């Protein structure tokens, strides 16, 4: 992947071969930090994926096929902790966001390059604690750490994981801060707010949530440590605490965290769809307002996780209403993506297949979220597989599809090489079917009453569990494929050129891979998605 392989490139790319290991580990270049994140995130994705595979294996048999109840509990806890904090939250912002945000606004780097590198080290440091917890025997609290189980009853390595997540939280706070300042202060001449690509809006809205919500998570985890370590009564009623207080604090972070995961995905989908439809996005302003609305209203809906938890009926009523309201901007986005297709000039390269998959699966996840937002329906459905299916449709069907779509879309820009298109399309389609076979049966399981986090289950649930596990094995193959052919492309791929998709974002005006300085001459700024005009 040396720069000399690209005939049109006369400068040294950020990926130039003569950067040594120390150059990489001390780099302040946002592009190389993005690559560092990508390596960490990919590692954790496969680690969490192995846990998911073991879970699905075990659930083939009603009595549990391969492991003990204790191991099972530790496995789903590890899956949740790793996938939420070490994959989903940093996935799009820390990799694609880091790489693209400065390029898209015509900047040379993020506002605080050293802080950016420090964020990566915090992320890795937190990850090491989490892996240490696994090696020390694991944790069995679930990723939600509900008290008083996590503070006074669990005999597993709660401290190590709590410290790991605490540290990683600061990585997310610093990244958010960095991005907010970058968007405010480093936009190039002519890049005013309503010329920002929707990806930048998505990252910006996410950053607001990261900065405002994550400190509450840090506090909550610290309180767990205080109660578990020193017996300070905060959450355990036996010590004079209140277990519902924990749930309020936890979901005050963890519901907005869902929007940390989905807002950047919405941005990615908007970039890809406009490019392969060759049209402006339908309703640009509504798309930006709806992202901001999701970020703000998302802070006011956490109580919908607690409709049966013992919170007051009046609180539940208000949280239910607000949850329906936060669904409106998501609905607007789905309609706008669909309307963007109308009268377009649509082609179906792999990134577009991922983006279309994202819209469809996100919509199904969102619609079932409406069902759960109604407290009367949440009573039977909460804490069952219906909820599991719902949030996997949003986070895996939504965020992961968009993340992979984004990786494919910008792969030529990031590496300078083209991946094999046929394999990429095949993987996207395989994942779509594998995903639906895995998670659609889980909606039915939840409606039938199978509770979540069950190591064993009643025999009548077996058929649906087998279908789900079969789907999971297809999905696993689907996820392995990009790992293989993308690596393959680094050695055998065709050179991509600066703008293989004939796209309009500023990032396509520089070379692939970009030089350290990003732009050798100032990029030409126009409206975003000017697909009706020729590329500059």
């Amino acid at each position, binding site marked *: 992947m040396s720069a000399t392989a690209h005939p049109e490139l006369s400068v040294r790319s950020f990926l130039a071969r003569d950067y040594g290991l120390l150059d990489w580990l001390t780099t302040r270049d946002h592009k190389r930090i993005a690559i560092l994140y990508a390596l960490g995130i990919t590692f954790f994705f496969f680690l969490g994926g192995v846990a998911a595979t073991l879970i699905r294996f075990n659930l083939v048999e009603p009595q549990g096929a391969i492991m003990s109840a204790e191991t099972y509990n530790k496995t789903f806890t590890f899956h949740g902790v790793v996938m939420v904090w070490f994959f989903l939250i940093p996935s799009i912002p820390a990799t694609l966001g880091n790489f693209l945000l400065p390029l898209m606004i015509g900047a040379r780097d993020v506002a605080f390059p050293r802080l950016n590198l420090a964020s990566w080290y915090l992320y890795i440091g937190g990850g090491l604690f989490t892996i240490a917890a696994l090696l020390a025997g694991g944790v069995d609290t679930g990723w939600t750490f509900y008290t008083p189980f996590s503070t006074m009853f669990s005999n597993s390595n709660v401290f190590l994981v709590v410290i790991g997540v605490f540290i990683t939280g600061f990585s997310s706070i610093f990244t958010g801060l960095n991005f907010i300042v970058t968007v405010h202060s480093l936009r190039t001449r002519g890049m005013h707010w309503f010329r920002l690509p929707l990806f930048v809006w998505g990252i910006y809205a996410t950053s607001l949530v990261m900065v405002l919500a994550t400190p509450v998570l840090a506090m909550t985890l610290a309180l767990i440590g205080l109660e578990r370590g020193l017996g300070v009564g905060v959450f355990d009623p036996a010590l004079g605490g209140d*277990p519902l207080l924990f749930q309020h604090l936890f979901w005050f972070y963890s519901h907005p965290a869902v929007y940390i995961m989905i807002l950047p995905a919405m941005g990615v989908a908007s970039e890809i769809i406009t490019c392969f439809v060759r049209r402006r996005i339908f309703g640009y302003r509504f798309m930006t307002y709806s992202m901001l609305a999701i970020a703000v209203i998302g802070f006011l809906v956490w109580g919908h996780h607690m409709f*049966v938890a013992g919170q007051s009926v009046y609180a539940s009523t208000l949280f239910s209403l607000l949850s329906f309201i936060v669904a*409106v901007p998501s609905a607007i986005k789905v309609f706008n993506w669909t309307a963007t297709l109308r*009268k377009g*000039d649509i082609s179906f390269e792999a990134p577009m297949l991922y983006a279309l998959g994202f819209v*469809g699966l996100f919509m199904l996840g969102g*619609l079932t979220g409406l*069902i759960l937002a109604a407290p*009367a329906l949440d009573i039977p459905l909460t804490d069952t597989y219906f909820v599991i299916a719902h949030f996997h449709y949003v986070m895996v069907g939504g965020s992961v599809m968009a993340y992979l779509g984004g990786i494919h879309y910008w792969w030529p820009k990031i590496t300078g090489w083209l991946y094999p298109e046929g394999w990429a399309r095949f993987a996207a389609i395989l994942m779509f079917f594998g995903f639906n076979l895995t998670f659609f049966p889980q909606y*039915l399981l939840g409606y039938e009453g199978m509770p979540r986090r069950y190591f064993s289950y009643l025999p009548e649930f077996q058929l649906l569990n087998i279908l789900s596990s079969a789907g999971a094995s297809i999905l696993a193959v689907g996820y392995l494929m990009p790992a293989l052919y993308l690596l393959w492309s680094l050695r055998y791929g065709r050179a991509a050129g600066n703008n293989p998709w004939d796209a309009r974002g500023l990032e396509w005006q520089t070379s692939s891979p970009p030089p350290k300085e990003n732009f050798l001459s100032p990029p030409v700024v126009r409206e975003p998605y000017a697909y009706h005009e020729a590329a500059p």
Partner: protein
Amino acid sequence: MNRFHLFLTQASSLAPQIDALFWSMIAVCGLVALGVFTAMVYFCIRYRRGSSADRSGAHQQSLGVELTWTLVPFAMFVGVFLWSLFLFAQAHTPPAQARTFYVVAKQWMWKVQHPAGQREINTLHVPLGVPIRLTMTSQDVIHSFYVPAFRVKQDVLPGRYTQVWFTATKLGRFPLFCAEYCGTDHSHMGGSVVVTSASEYAAWLASQSSGGTMAQQGATLFNSLGCSGCHGPNSAVHAPQLAGLYGRPVHLEGGGSVIADERYLRDSILLPHSQIVAGYAPIMPEYSGQASEEEVMALIQYIKSLPSATEPPR
């Protein structure tokens, strides 16, 4: 592999109503999803690159269209919200004549006591057609009482009472689950609810030894734990009278009042100093750690059984 049924049994009075809302939502969401998918597929085929479809006059924004698909979903959401609210209120309002059963959850079992005093573990016998209210608490971590066939679920917390109610409308045995993750044997913390006819239920009660009704057991505890020394009818100590207390408002020292429900009675036994009745000195000892959750429940049932005085206590 047992047979799989698409439609879950409806075995409580609330179940058909909740299902009506559920299937209406499924129908509406299904129509919306179908509409969007159809539009996506249609556009993708008609406007594929190289097709000869007419692409003139493409709008990329329209305030009217945006407002339509903002306000129409919003109006629908408000409708669903109100329908759900109506059912949610019902699910939280047990009928006045509901019989109270007591449930104590612990890692990893459900302990139930009937008002007549009989106890059972991981099984709950209830008569058909009678509203049953469960007053529940946990001895350790959070659990959740979940009977899918009744469409009821309620978390069971340590240190406080939560309640759930249902009227069984179908004879049979229905699975009971713990729905809140509670540790190693969470998935084995289940059992069943057995719905029988009123006469079979009475026969079942008679076949079980009970040691007296819960109120009688509570009366014994009232003496043995020393409650009667102050709260008894002939006590010289200035303590609040308990007859007729249940369900009444209580004026508190320092202003305000609370309804003397089960939660208030429990707190006043275990942690009496948290809410002092107006006009009384805070001299009652704490029974936290002295009385088990089951004993507190028996005491409450005893207090509820005391005949109401003709004049409410001032």
